[in-house]
């Protein structure tokens, strides 16, 4: 049979439960701006009733384990899209930097034009020393525009290499952190405690890791493991496996996972974006510049040697001959002569002949690189540069939109709503006040019962 004191116990259980719920609300409100935080929901359960047949008495309310509201599949999808975004953003950033060398008034294209124009000027008056000097200057400018463009790409490549090393160390810090979080989560779960907050933290850590590398989350019996998409182990439960960066024979940093080179096997994250630009985009551009510089200098040198200088002596090389195998031609090209009278403009040995200058000028329309004339070839290089950036930008935007949508979805499930918390606060406050009122009432009743005998 019920008693005033059992009612008191029930009211106390209500006070405690509402207090717990208020705590939870307070915690949700506090974490409204915490990245990755998944809101927690108070769980109230009815106390196990006491049966005194034929009657059943309630025993109040039990404040259960709070629930973190999270869609694990959506979180995985977010990790994956974050990896795409990380890769494209890194590519866009680097390629934008790379394309600056291919525009403006000092690029190879402009200097090519100036070079051939000064050659045309020279053919109008081949024995003029000022015009010869002008031609040498234009040739020097052309060579230095090749050098500047190629060298700035090479410097960028070196900088990217340093970023690769930094990314690896960031990845290692994060995997270590995640292994630690795994351990804490397991410890809590072993004693059936709520690990929701820690899981939120771990999810956020994996999100950060996803910015950098293509992580796959593999749930195991009691915890999770992380691998790259290609299967290189990063975290197994409470143990992390560090990646290492080592200089490869090609001179750039390669990524190793437990002794295996995984550099070319990454498929997402900013690290892969960096590696793609470093190992594909920039070498591709350098190769095109090299092909043009080598083709141009070889063709021009051949013609220059066939002519005669101002003194009637057979010409030498106009540009330093390109290295064998083309690589490095753009960064090493320079004008081979400094004396303007050594320019072999003449085709018959007499100083006033412009035959060879005209032949040099005709290289303008000759196939020197990949069957294309220098201007067409350079235009195709400009196209490739621009197209690389534009493609990466489009991909980054598309991925950004998907990421935004997924984040919206995730927020609609897991983010803290202040309105909701405000409403809950009112509910719990009211319930708490009601329970307190019950206690006051029981107190009054108890007083009345105690005072019964005094009449």
């Amino acid at each position, binding site marked *: 049979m019920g008693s005033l004191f059992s009612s008191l116990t029930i009211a106390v259980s209500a006070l405690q439960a509402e207090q717990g719920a208020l705590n939870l609300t307070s915690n949700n409100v506090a974490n409204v701006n915490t990245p990755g935080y998944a809101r927690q929901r108070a769980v109230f359960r009815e106390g196990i009733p006491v049966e005194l047949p034929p009657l059943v008495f309630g025993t109040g309310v039990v404040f259960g384990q709070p629930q973190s509201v999270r869609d694990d599949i959506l979180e995985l999808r977010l990790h994956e899209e974050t990896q795409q975004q990380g890769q494209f953003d890194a590519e866009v950033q680097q390629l934008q930097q790379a394309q600056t060398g291919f525009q403006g008034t000092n690029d190879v294209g402009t200097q090519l034009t100036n070079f051939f124009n000064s050659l045309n000027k020279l*053919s109008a008056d081949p024995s003029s020393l000022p015009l010869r000097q002008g031609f040498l200057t234009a040739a020097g400018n052309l060579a230095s525009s090749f050098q500047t463009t190629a060298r700035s790409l090479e410097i960028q490549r070196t900088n990217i290499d340093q970023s690769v090393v930094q990314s690896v160390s960031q990845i290692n810090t994060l995997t270590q952190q995640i292994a630690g979080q795994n351990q804490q989560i397991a410890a809590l779960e072993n004693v059936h405690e709520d690990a929701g907050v820690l899981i939120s933290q771990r999810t956020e850590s994996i999100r950060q890791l996803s910015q950098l590398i293509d992580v796959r989350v593999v749930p195991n019996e009691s915890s999770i493991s992380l691998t790259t998409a290609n299967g290189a182990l990063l975290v197994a439960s409470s143990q992390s496996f560090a990646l290492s960066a080592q200089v490869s024979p090609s001179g750039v940093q390669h990524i190793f996972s437990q002794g295996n080179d995984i550099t070319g096997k990454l498929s997402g994250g900013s690290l892969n974006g960096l590696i793609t630009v470093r190992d594909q985009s920039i070498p591709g551009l350098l190769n095109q510049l090299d092909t043009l510089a080598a083709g141009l200098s070889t063709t021009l040198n051949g013609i220059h040697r066939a002519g005669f200088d101002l003194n009637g002596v057979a010409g030498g090389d106009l540009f330093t001959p390109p290295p064998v195998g083309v690589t490095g031609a753009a960064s090493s090209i320079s004008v081979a002569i400094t004396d303007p009278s050594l320019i072999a403009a003449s085709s018959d040995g007499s*100083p*006033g002949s412009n035959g060879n200058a005209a032949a040099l*000028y005709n290289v*303008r329309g000759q196939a020197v690189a990949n069957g294309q004339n220098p201007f067409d070839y350079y235009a195709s290089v400009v196209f490739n540069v621009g197209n690389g950036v*534009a493609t990466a930008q489009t991909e980054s935007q598309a991925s950004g939109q998907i990421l935004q949508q997924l984040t919206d979805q995730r*927020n*609609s499930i897991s983010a803290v709503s202040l309105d909701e918390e405000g409403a809950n606060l009112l509910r719990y406050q009211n319930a708490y006040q009601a329970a307190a009122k019950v206690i006051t009432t029981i107190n009054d009743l108890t007083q009345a019962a105690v005072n019964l005998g005094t009449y």
Partner: protein
Amino acid sequence: MRVNPNPIADILASIALDQQIQETALAQLASGRRVNLPSDDPAAAATLSLNHAQAAQDDQFLQVISGVSARLQVADSTIGSVVSSLDRAISLGIEGGGATLSNANRSAIVTELQGLQQQILGLANTSFQGSYLFAGTASTTAPFSANPASPSGVSYGGNTGTNTLSVGQSFSVTVNLPGSQLFSGTGGDVFQSLQDLTVAVQNNTGIDTAVLGLRKAFDVVTTQRVFYGNVLQQLDAQQTSINSEKLQLSKQENAVGGADPAAAASAAVSAATARTAALQAATSLLNTSLFNFLK
């Protein structure tokens, strides 16, 4: 369904997008160009690279044409003077052949003929900006020199080389005539026939034959002179065609790379409006929460 309670990221993204559109439009308006970086439009950037190269080349052709035309005009007027001198020499020859002429008169004619010879020699050694016009490609030294040992009294030290010059994408012209071709071409040698005439007048014999020879030399020079007129005409036509090509190129540049000011301006304005709206929405949204009403 539960609504995303945290729309800040969306609002920020939309504000950033509007800002980007605004900046792009303003950059287009400021520069007048739609393609400022290769990535703005890769195909257009490639076309523009070729367009600029060709336009700069056209400017260069125009410069070269004006320089070469000046030189050709000097050469042409020099030959004009040679022709007048020869004309005078022929008149003198006819005069010298007159039966009533005294020895003193003939000797005056001889003196004038010798003067004309010197004059033509000087004209044949005309240089323009330091290079001799009638020396073939050996243009750094005077081509003709007086030489008593030579039958004509003059010897040619130039060569027979000619220069051609590109003055169009696939158009080039020959820009000089070697002195040997002008002054001692097939059918008439200027210096030889002048020398012959001088000797004939001096000796008062064979003057008619000598005048005939000088006429032939005169014909050769006037025939060769046509070359300069032709080239100058070609250069003139080429100049016109390059100018119209430049116009086409500049039209192409505008079509491919130019900004559409009206479109850019309206994009800038609508992006600004959208941005203001987004900012206002953000302020009202971010200030609204149930907590604002719980007192």
